[in-house]
């Protein structure tokens, strides 16, 4: 059966932990899920004690508005919290406070870039809710029990739901990466997938390419990495295509991705679907985002990656790959733009080259973050090379010393006498002494072995201890050799 007979429709639901200091409905600190001892960031409110009431964290609302704006959503002037009812030991109140009928943000879209060009993926809604606690299932000598840790209970979440507008794994990955980039860019979330700060669920159905109507969909949960997402989607696409090709029917199910077995496993069938009995949360008045508040949040938004990309490609002529390396971390962009501001005369491309190669290599090796580097010193180094004060290879050495010692490039150059020799008479005598010292090689060159010019160049540079301006050396060497012809 031909591969292109069926087409997939894929939508993503993404749970994002908001980067607030305190929880969604109480003043408990949001703590690291791994290092914080269990049940140390809890209070009567997030434990669901009798008599307590929730109060909305304004900061969480603002981060959610930012995300909504970045996703080109409408921001609801009035949104409503609702109770989602179900029993589970990690859910202290027996209901989760979420938003249901009236989410904070809705009707948006995100542009993604794929090998087929730019594509618009619609975002149906983004709503605020609280996270649950975490269970650890124990088994000691055959006795099983579970431990409940409520540190995470009540941590603010934003659930972002796309329309099923994606059709390939490439599009799903592009959407996911771009979403993560935007959220990190805005400081909405750390986007740390290993710590569960961003959790993906996919819904996927397949249909014959000529069919208008979407097929029966399955939901796949537990996609904890981009890799898992890719594998799970490919796996489900294959499974469903096989089923449909056989003339079979896809069952509506909730699946989980098993990393251990590289396959999806059934968690719940349609018949077991929960009735969550949503109703408006009576403990919270409607959330009103009035125009002044919305405008203030809007005004606090930074230039977004899309605008940066356009500017870097257009005005500065940077290439696509370099641009992506810059915008993937907001700190990179900040550093780059600080450099531009400090040295407006430098070609941005030159700065980017130094930054993405030598500087990044050093940061990687030494496990340092870019915000530990002073952009002013860095551009002094780039300028020194650009102006011919030192040559490229000396520049690399000076950079390392500058990064390690914190000294200014000029101080290092001065102290070590690394100034490039650009003095023509000095270079002229250097070249002629090298030519005199190597008559055999000069003869061979003149006889037609032109590659020896490079060897002679190397000899001159060695004599100059690398300090000679290579461009000047090259010209002078060629002049003297030509004169011998």
């Amino acid at each position, binding site marked *: 059966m031909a591969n292109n007979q069926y087409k997939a429709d894929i939508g993503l639901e993404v749970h994002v932990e908001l980067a607030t200091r305190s929880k969604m409905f109480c003043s408990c600190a949001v703590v690291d899920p791994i290092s914080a001892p269990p049940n140390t960031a809890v209070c009567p409110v997030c434990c*669901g*004690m*009798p008599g307590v*009431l929730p*109060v909305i964290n304004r900061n969480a609302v603002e981060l959610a508005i930012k995300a909504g704006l970045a996703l080109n959503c409408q921001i609801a002037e009035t949104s409503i919290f609702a*109770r989602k009812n179900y*029993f589970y030991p990690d859910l202290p109140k*027996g*209901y989760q406070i979420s938003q249901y009928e009236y989410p904070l943000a809705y009707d948006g879209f995100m542009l993604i870039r794929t090998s087929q060009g730019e594509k618009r993926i619609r975002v149906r809604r983004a709503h605020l809710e609280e996270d649950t606690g975490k269970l650890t299932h124990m088994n000691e000598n055959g006795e099983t029990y579970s431990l409940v840790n409520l540190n995470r209970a009540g941590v603010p979440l934003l659930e972002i739901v796309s329309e099923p507008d994606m059709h390939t794994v490439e599009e799903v990955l592009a959407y996911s990466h771009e979403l993560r980039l935007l959220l990190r860019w805005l400081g909405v979330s750390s986007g740390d997938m290993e710590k569960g700060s961003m959790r993906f669920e996919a819904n996927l159905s397949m249909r014959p390419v000529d069919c208008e109507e979407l097929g029966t969909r399955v939901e796949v949960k537990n996609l904890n990495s981009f890799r898992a997402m890719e594998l799970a989607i490919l796996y489900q696409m294959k499974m469903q295509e096989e089923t449909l090709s056989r003339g079979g029917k896809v069952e509506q199910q909730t699946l989980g991705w098993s990393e251990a077995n590289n396959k999806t496993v059934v968690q719940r069938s349609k018949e077991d679907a929960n009735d969550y009995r949503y*109703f408006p949360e009576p403990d919270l008045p409607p959330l009103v985002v009035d125009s002044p508040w919305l405008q203030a949040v809007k005004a606090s938004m930074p230039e977004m990656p899309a605008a940066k990309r356009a500017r870097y490609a257009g005005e500065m002529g940077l290439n696509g790959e370099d641009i992506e390396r810059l915008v993937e971390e907001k700190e990179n962009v900040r550093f780059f733009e600080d450099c531009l501001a400090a040295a407006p005369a430098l070609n941005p491309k030159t700065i980017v080259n130094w930054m993405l190669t030598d500087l990044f290599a050093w940061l990687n090796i030494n496990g340092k973050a870019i915000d530990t580097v002073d952009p002013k010193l860095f551009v002094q180094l780039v300028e020194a090379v650009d102006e011919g004060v030192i040559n490229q290879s000396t520049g690399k050495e000076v950079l390392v010393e500058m990064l390690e010692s914190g000294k200014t490039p000029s101080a290092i150059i001065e102290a070590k006498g690394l100034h490039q020799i650009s003095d023509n008479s000095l270079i002229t005598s250097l070249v002629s002494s090298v030519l005199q010292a190597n008559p055999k090689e000069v003869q061979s060159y003149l006889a037609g072995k032109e590659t020896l010019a490079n060897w002679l160049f190397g000899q001159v540079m060695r004599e100059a201890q690398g300090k000679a301006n290579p461009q000047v050396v090259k010209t002078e060497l060629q002049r003297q050799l030509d004169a011998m012809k």
Partner: protein
Amino acid sequence: MTEITAFTVKEALQALETGQVSSLELTKAYLERIQRLEPALHAFITLTPDAALAGAKAADERRAQLKKAGAALPPLLGLPLAVKDVLCVKDVRTTCGSKILENFKPPFNATSVQKLLNAGVVVLGKTNTDEFAMGSSTENSAYGVTHNPWDTERVPGGSSGGSAAAVAACFAPAALGTDTGGSVRQPASFCGVTGIKPTYGRVSRYGLIAYGSSLDSVGVLGRSAEDVETIFRLMAGFDPRDATSLDRPVDEPGCAGAADLKGLRVGVPKEYFIEGIQPEVEARVREAIQVLAAQGAQIVEISLPHTSYALPVYYLIAPAEASANLARYDGVRFGLREENNGVIDMFMKSRGKGFGPEVKRRIMLGTYALSAGYYDAYYGQAQKVRTLIKADFEEAFKSVDVVAAPIAPTTAFKIGGHGDDPLAMYLEDVFTLPANLAGVPGLAFPVGFDAQKLPVGMQLMGRPFEERTLFRAAHVYQQATDFHKQTPAI
């Protein structure tokens, strides 16, 4: 001289101020009286005599110190108070009348309680209540029924029956209650005391263990409108811990200096004088309205046309909210946990054993009303009708300042009188539910007795945040009558 336990709040505060009595003496007097009469009444679930005596002693010392320093005294310094057992008092067992919270000691004070502690009160103990405030007789308590001090074979009303009985029996000068569908006003009526259900959002609900969150309010029961207002004013106000509390300034007392009711327009809604109402109840209420008229009020017949829908609307909305509010009692973190085989079994056994029949009935009602396929017909529809009930009041308050009405169709009924008929019990609330659904304040006060010498109460309902007007009217009434001064012979 009056026995000190029969003091009003005003009298007690005066006696404390003049040194006629110390807080310790007063507290001891109440504790002794409770010890003597409690077996016949059972107004309390938990008494805290040690903490009360220590608190009283501390209050007396503080009074001496502050006086010496010429500093201002907290307004209720050393005043004993009873607290309904659905309000959290730090480190004191708070059961909600339920087995499921038999050993629950909250680590915090309800905001209402905290404000009164700040004002200097001494908590005597926690009063009996229908389980999770669900009931109108205090018979639904897992800790036994409370008896009406006027006739111990009768119920005190509910769910704040313990608080009403405690005030009527002079176990305390005042008590905190809560009112979700009439739970302050109806027991106040049955026990012949005065009680306020404030505007929704006027007093913080933080620390009030939730039953119906959109209806619950914290109120006060006492011996006079003046007393109740004094305590109410100290509890009122915005609380950052309760997002539904409102930032409205607390008014000057309505009782102060009120001499007559000239200019007050009193609406009498015809829908509250229906067939089936005990004739003596209607007669006493109509007489009381005449007293108001005699004090200068203008009496206007009005209509609140959607009154009859209040009962079905309430018994959908309150149970729906309760079904979620009571989901937290699952045996995981606090309260009762039964032996079990796994988590679902733990939920079912703990809840099966911990909740009484009325609570289970309302959880099932509410769960059903919210279920997929039924939501629109039940909960959704109820919310729509609720807005009509609210609109009735808004319309009425265009032409009148307060609405005067009976509180319950009858006086206190016999313990077990409603047998196993939950509907008959629900009908007890028919006149009190509208105020909760509309969020307006209601003040109950005694207006006489029936032939069996059982108290009859009347309620005044007012515009949101105009409790002051209700207090003023009741105070003028109480200046002209002495029903509120009658005490049961026990």
